[in-house]
């Protein structure tokens, strides 16, 4: 019997689904063992019956052994879909950093919904200003939630998006009835750059010019970007983006610093506190960097980490 799989994207960008497709030929090879019963990007199973005449209070997700959910929870519909996925899937995987930690869309958690609506529907130059849409569209929740703030999550697969190698590993492990072997260290642990110690470094700077390196030489010959004085989130970010071959973290391959897209090293870690601690213990001051919270919690603003600033008195 093929493994029944259901897949959904909530407040997401479809990048996690494209990461599944980027399994390429491996996905074709796995296909006979998988029976996708629900996956809106690729197939036509509907929530309210194939004739669209079902009861809107009873959102249908077919029974599946494995459920994958990308995206965070931003509105009432996301919540209902997530609850239906939880109820109908034996094992639930939070796919991608939006699902595990809020991801980029959780940057909105630093603002109140009313500010967003005001700007979006009445404040843009091209807008003919109008009231907020409220009819037949799902109401917003007060902020963006990671999945485990709303339901129990069985497997966390962070990454924006997760590396296809680890999506394959999660599915294969499930088929074989074992625990998936996923990376648990930090991006730095998977980074081949040369580390010589921080030296005289007292501050970190914005990425306004390229790092120093010899493009003819491999990444293993490049000096660590943090040691070059660029903010690099490698020390406080979960490894994984280098994939199974482990050549180098993806951004480092492009010779740019990590921005933390795999979320914290430990599921309940705090990238901002960890980074501030790591820098402070090396005597590096980052007060001069603009946008600290938005920069260091860029991918992990759910779980109440990013909050609206208290209104100015």
């Amino acid at each position, binding site marked *: 019997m093929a493994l029944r799989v259901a897949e959904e994207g909530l407040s*997401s960008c479809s*990048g996690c689904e494209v990461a599944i497709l980027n399994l390429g030929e491996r996905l*074709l090879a796995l296909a006979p063992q998988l029976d996708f019963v629900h996956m809106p990007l690729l197939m036509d*199973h509907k929530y309210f019956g194939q004739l669209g005449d079902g009861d809107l209070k009873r959102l249908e997700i077919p029974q599946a052994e494995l459920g994958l959910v990308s995206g965070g929870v931003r509105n009432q519909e*996301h919540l209902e879909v997530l609850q239906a996925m939880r109820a109908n899937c034996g094992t639930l995987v939070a796919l991608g950093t939006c699902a595990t930690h809020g991801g980029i869309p959780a940057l909105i958690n630093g603002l109140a919904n009313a500010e967003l609506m005001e700007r979006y529907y009445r404040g843009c130059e091209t807008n*003919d200003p109008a009231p907020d*849409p409220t009819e037949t569209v799902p109401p917003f929740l007060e902020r963006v939630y990671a999945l485990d703030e709303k339901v129990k999550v069985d497997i966390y697969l962070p990454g924006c998006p997760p590396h296809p190698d680890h999506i394959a590993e999660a599915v294969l492990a499930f088929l074989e009835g074992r625990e998936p072997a996923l990376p648990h260290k930090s991006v730095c642990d998977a980074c081949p750059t040369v580390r010589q110690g921080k030296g005289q470094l007292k501050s970190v700077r914005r990425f*306004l010019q390229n790092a120093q390196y010899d493009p003819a030489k491999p990444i293993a010959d490049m000096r660590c970007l943090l040691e070059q004085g660029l903010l690099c989130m490698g020390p406080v970010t979960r490894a994984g983006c280098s994939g199974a071959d482990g050549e180098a973290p993806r951004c480092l391959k492009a010779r740019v610093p990590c921005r933390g897209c795999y979320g914290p090293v430990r599921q309940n870690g705090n990238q901002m506190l960890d980074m501030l601690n790591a820098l402070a213990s090396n005597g590096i001051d980052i007060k001069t960097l603009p946008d600290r919270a938005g920069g260091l919690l860029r991918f992990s603003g759910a779980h109440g980490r990013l909050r609206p600033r208290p209104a100015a008195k």
Partner: protein
Amino acid sequence: MAKTINIQPVTRIEGHARISIQLDDQGRVADSKLHIMAMRGFEKFIEGRPAEEVPRIVSRICGICPWMHHTAANKAVDQCFGAQVPPAGRKLRELMQVMAHISDKILHFFFLAAPDFVMGAGADYKIRNVLGLAQAAPELAAQVVKMRQAGQMMLERFAGKVIHPVAMVPGGFAKPMSQKERDELLAGAGEQLEFAKFCMKYAKENVFAKLDQDALSLGRITTGFLGLVDPADGSLNLFDGALRLMKPDGSYLDFNCRQYADFLGERVETWSYGKFPYARVWGEGFSMDLEAPKGIYRSNTLARLNVCDRINTPLAQAELEEFRRRFGRPAQSTTLYHWARLIELVYACERVLEILEDETITDPLVRNPVEPRAGRGVGCVEAPRGSLIHDYVTGDDGCIASANMIVGTTHNLAPMNMSVRRAALDAIKGGQVSEEALNQVEMAVRCYDP
């Protein structure tokens, strides 16, 4: 009895949408709507972020076309900071952006749209998808999967990260291209062009040849069109140029992207989180009435092929000439979006080869340092789904003070609503609702690849 049909979610599209169709007491279509169900608010939450970081943030607007947002954002920040991009940096940017079009078109045509044509609009939904296609035509599927994957890996090997890229930076590009990388890409690009030719031939024989009058009138509407053209000769240009806004009668206005707000406006309706762009400059207001639309124009593949005067690569130009002979200019049939998509696939492959054949692309100077400052920038590219506009204002600290964006798909929100209405009126008669009829309504939406 009057009732509402809910197609939810709309499937085999990139975004999140629902279609509602109201039937009256006689079972006739009285009303229909395509609702966009979510809004994330990138315009708002990038405020206060250092502008040079924004190209790595806004890529998350869409995981299918992240390179488009990455490119448009970098172009906007360049202007805010007054940066001059070195020639090789500019070439690498165009190369990446056009390569990303290739994977996108293969994805849409074969993974999302083709099941309707190959398996049939009325096939069981359990097999009317890419996995069903893989069983029905395993060799074709294997080839498609292999070539799409090859395209993704070409981008990834050179640029590090293919989904949510990071390699473009304000002032240029983060790494130069080595001769070895160039040779590898040239070889890969040659194979992609061969595959594009195969796709065109396959589609003409197996899909387009079968488009009868009914298929060509699926979701038919009459509108204007918007797309970038090269200011020098009016040719198709995905990466840069002037915006051309064409009226349904074929007359047009060209304008600099920075003036977009004088030409385009956006409406808000109470029943969708998505805004509805329209041609403000036409001065006729906004209406989605099928008989008397006002201010409605379309974007994406068909629009680009309608607005351009020519295509400067030989195979795509030959395809365009044939297309125009058969369907005129502007061609209005919604189904022709698919055909136009494959002509663009051919163009993209030819263009990638052209860029790579320029040996100065390996010049090591790919980025000039940038200085944060106050300014304004409007970055525009053609995304697969339409003209993409990122408009940023920065403060003295080089952080975003305000931003406005019009994303490719949103240009088509009003046209898609109209095509849904048209398709529903044609497919649902006397209250007879079948799965096939509802899928036809969705097929009208899929043409636009939202």
